[in-house]
């Protein structure tokens, strides 16, 4: 890819990873929209994990094996964001086969 695209990609990814790692541990822990409605309407307790989710590596965005909650959240954000980038990129690599048309000058 062109220098300009590579730079854009790195910067955007850095922002996403940075936020997921450093800002997510400080995110609000109040219940979110659906959870709050479920609490108020009395069906929150219906929620349950599927069998396969009980073996999920990082349930609730808590990186396994890390005691400190903030650190666990930050690590989950860090690895998760990079993983999603890799999956998205990999999927696109497989799917996209056309050459680019006119690119802006780097």
């Amino acid at each position, binding site marked *: 890819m062109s220098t300009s695209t590579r730079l854009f990609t790195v910067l955007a990814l850095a922002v996403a990873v940075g936020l997921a790692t450093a800002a*997510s541990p400080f995110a609000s822990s109040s219940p979110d929209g659906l959870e709050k409605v479920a609490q108020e309407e009395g069906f929150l307790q219906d929620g349950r994990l599927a069998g396969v989710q009980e073996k*999920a590596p990082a349930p609730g965005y808590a990186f396994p094996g890390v005691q400190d909650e903030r650190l666990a959240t930050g690590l989950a954000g860090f690895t998760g964001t990079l993983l999603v980038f890799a*999956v*998205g990129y990999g999927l*696109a690599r497989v799917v996209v086969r056309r050459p680019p048309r006119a690119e802006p000058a780097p």
Partner: protein
Amino acid sequence: MHIPDGFLDAEVAAAAGVAAAGAVAYGLRRAERTLDERAVPMLGVTGAVVFAAPMLNFPVAGGTSGHVLGAALAAVLLGPWVACLVLAVVLGLQAFLFADGGITALGANALNMGVIGGLGAGAVIAAGRRVLPATQSAFVGLVGIAAWLAVMAGAAATALQLAASGTAPLGTVMPAMLGVHALIGVGEAVVTVAAVSAVLASRPDLVAMAPPLAQPVSPNRAAEA
């Protein structure tokens, strides 16, 4: 939060799953036919942003928090159908790796947030582009409105599914969901506008749904149709 298992009954979850799978499959075909090389990193970046942004819960009124959805952002960057694909992939990873959203409920989550959110935002943007002047501020404002509507549509769909499952009565759950998401939607609009503005300022050719603003050609031809 994404809908966990246990909120929706099997028929509703299955129906939503079929609808979502169809839309995502179409998104995959559209991706094959219309994307070019520049879209490869953009799919990764958009996925990363759509994954990371919802981790940043912000407080809204009354002891509640909200988080952004990213469907409108994905739609404006990648076009609505490819956005469905990316959003569904992110939701799948969230459900399996982080137990965020149920497995049987994955179809419903993908439908509400990915398909309805992505296609809804895309439709609003496409329609708005036809009537609004082709200026950056008009476009960005339109994107903000589309973002808010996408959140509201997803919330309404969730309420309908909850009611159809007998989990909560429609008369209470619909206004409750719409009420809280009206506020969350404002946050979504603000973040989406900021993000799209940033991309337009640096690489407008990477914004598939942007109208011609005297800039190079976008990598997704089909979104301009």
